[in-house]
């Protein structure tokens, strides 16, 4: 059951908004940052590996 009479009350968090919302925000932000950083790291590693393979292939060609 929804515990809140109005959206304003939900935002106010019974007077604890200054503690609850930064906690939620930090957690969600950290979740997102972890995904973005991990995916970027994988994309970079893939690019580097492809470049390395291309250089090797060029080196092996007669």
């Amino acid at each position: 059951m929804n515990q809140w009479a109005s959206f304003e009350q939900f935002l106010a968090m019974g007077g604890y908004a200054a503690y609850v919302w930064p906690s939620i925000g930090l957690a969600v932000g950290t979740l997102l940052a972890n995904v973005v950083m991990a995916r970027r790291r994988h994309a970079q590693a893939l690019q580097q590996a492809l470049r390395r393979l291309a250089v090797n292939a060029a080196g092996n060609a007669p």
Partner: protein
Amino acid sequence: MATWTWFHRFGSPPFVYRIAGRCAPWFGAGAVLCIAYGLFGGLVLAPPDYQQKDAFRIVYVHAPAAWLSLSCYTTMAVAAFVGLVWRIKVAHAVASALAPVGASFAFVCLATGSLWGRPMWGTWWEWDARLTSQLILLFLYLGYMALRSAHDDLQRADRASAVLAVVGVVNVPIIHYSVYWWNSLHQGATVMKADKPSMPAEMLVPLLVMFLGFTLFQLWVLCTRLRAEILERERNARWLREEIQEGA
């Protein structure tokens, strides 16, 4: 016999690279669904706590962050141990891939705990057993990552950091039992204890779903980072050529 084939397969970079790539989207979808439901259930559906009122809702991110930081560390130490003893490269890659996730959530656990402690205990920080041992966990993660980046040689980085990870695992039970062993400001366990959890279902279910979501999230990030680690480690293997040039 079967155990050894299993062990061998999970030590093989091509196999792990492919299986991690196949599993990652499922872990990701599960994590997003569970965390979205858990937040909704915890912030909107759950009734306020009779003592802590709406401030208790911080638990929905604080406890799963604590759980993630501990399970990450334990997995990291086990992987490091396997890497040290059996010299399996993939195991070192797993340990290395887990450190940044664990470190960031050890920090989230401390910061949200601080934000919760201020209105409930009247202080942002106290040198209390639970809080101090969790801070040591963060330092262990940071030390692990610093030690890795201090070595240019990957194998030496693996071995040195693995020793730290394995030794540091003694801190994990200390964190868990600190609230029983010492007088602590921190409340005791409400969910992970032998008898029934001391929470009504409307509060408990979103929290359990959050725990599940954070576990899936950890596996999701692990799969992605592990793939990157394997790409960086497997320089010119033939399987790599076939694998990534087909895909590109």
